[in-house]
């Protein structure tokens, strides 16, 4: 199939009204801010990714994969950037008309490996969602990041993840999405056994994209 034909097919599918929206999938553009250890070590970046969302009855699942290229921000002590690949997964169950409980995982890897911490954690939390108009839904989520693992070692007893989401049906099957995520990990390390020192990690991320309802 040629590229114009594929484009026409996707456009036709996008403009056709969906009878039962169960799955959406689409690309995303990402803006991110990353800070680690001290205020002087900060990065800004942008990248691309994709997201998949599915619902069946009260159960919904969401997955997002983004790849962001970080560069040292103005005034940063860092002298080189890195590329982060982050995978987020959420599985939620509606417990009320406007609320869900959710679990999931977070995994972020850095390249080069030692330029930033690679992190893995389990999410446990909840979300609230509300339809603010025809085809428009706003979501707020708060998750505790349990059992985080860092490539540089250490522990983080208090790690939280906040999120704000927006899904608007633009036309037929075409949706516009915007997602904000703030992650804070109060990491502590004990380098050389000299005692624990704070090495917090903080990231903000905005994902804006389109999604096609299937």
């Amino acid at each position, binding site marked *: 199939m040629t590229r114009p034909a594929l484009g026409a097919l996707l456009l036709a599918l996008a403009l056709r009204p969906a009878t039962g929206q169960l799955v959406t999938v689409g690309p995303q553009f990402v*803006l*991110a*801010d990353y*800070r*680690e*250890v*001290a*205020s002087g070590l*900060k990065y*800004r970046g942008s990248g691309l990714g994709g997201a998949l969302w599915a619902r069946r009855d009260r159960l919904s699942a969401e997955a997002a994969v983004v790849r962001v290229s970080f560069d040292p921000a103005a005034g940063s002590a860092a002298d080189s950037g890195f590329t982060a690949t982050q995978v987020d997964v959420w599985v939620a169950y509606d417990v009320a008309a406007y609320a869900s409980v959710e679990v999931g995982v977070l995994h972020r890897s850095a390249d080069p490996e030692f330029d930033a911490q690679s992190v893995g954690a389990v999410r446990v939390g909840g979300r*609230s969602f*509300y*339809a*603010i*108009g*025809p085809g*428009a839904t*706003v*979501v*707020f989520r*708060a998750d505790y990041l349990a059992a985080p693992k860092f490539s540089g070692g250490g522990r983080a007893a208090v790690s*939280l993840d*906040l*999120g*704000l*989401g*927006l899904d*608007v049906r633009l036309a037929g099957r075409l949706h516009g999405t*915007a*997602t*904000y995520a*703030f992650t*804070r990990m*109060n990491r502590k390390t004990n380098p050389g056994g000299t005692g624990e020192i*704070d090495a*917090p990690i*903080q990231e*903000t*991320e*905005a994902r*804006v994209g389109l999604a096609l309802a299937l």
Partner: protein
Amino acid sequence: MAPLRYLRAVVCLAGLAVPVVAAGQAAQNATVRRAQQAYDNLEYRQVLTLARAALRERLTGAERARAYELLGFTYGAMDSILKAVDAFKQVVLIDPERQLDPNRVSPKAYSAFDVALRQVLLVRQLRVDSVSFVGGQGAVPIRFTVTQPARVVARAIGTGATVVIDSGAWNGQVNLRWPARLPGGDPVPAGAYTVVVDARLGQNTFSASQPIRVGHGRVDTLPSITSLPGYQFLPETEIPPQSWRPVGLAFLYTGGALVGTLGLEGSSLGSSSKRELGLVGGAALVTGFVMMLRKPAPRPAEANILYNRLLRDQIARRNQDIAKENVARRQQVQVTVTPVPK
């Protein structure tokens, strides 16, 4: 007074003459015609002679009845009531359905005719009405007149079956209702029947009959209903009034994200970038504002949904009853009875 008495006599005689003139118009026998002319001319002796002479001739039943009728009216006019009764008895034996109009004949002649009817055993005016009914739920009206107290048996005799309709000791007008059913309860088979009424009084018997046709048809079934009269389905969604709720919720959710971000930010890392939250939060606020201005989405009207469910249940229940009734109706037979001209 004399002219008045003469006038009354003329009127009375004219009243006697009217039915006989009407009957004599169709007479073929010459002697009967001459008797009729004599009666028209009030020559009663001549009427008696000619009518008796005609009765000795070869006459049809109608001519014989007419001859006796001339005799009856003439005897009546001559005040020979017993002889008039005898003549009228012969008339009704020949033509049992013969009827005199009390408004057109003299009281003397009518009373003589009435006495004659009571002295002869007859079954007259047997009528079977056209009727159509569901087998077992209706009856065929049958009526007749018995002129003397007698033992009467009414039967329906047909190729398919012979059924006794009713029997009893009756006199005068009799009204029967025949359910058109066999002894087992099934409708009588379709076909041609003759309703026969036999009357017996001592040695005297008389029978009257009326052919009828019994037809079978299917009973109409009831159509299913889609609505109940007087009850309408209500819309199951309603459009709520416009409100600030969309932008308020967007503000609340964005504010929650902002407060959470500010609260979790550590001083050691400095204030985080707000462009990401600004981008997404701004989009949420704009969307909320647009949604506030737009027509709200319809929402379910629970009361109407419940009402419609009850209404649908009622309609379904009624349709179940109709279906059951239709099953019964399909097993029933529409019986149609029509009298057949003799």
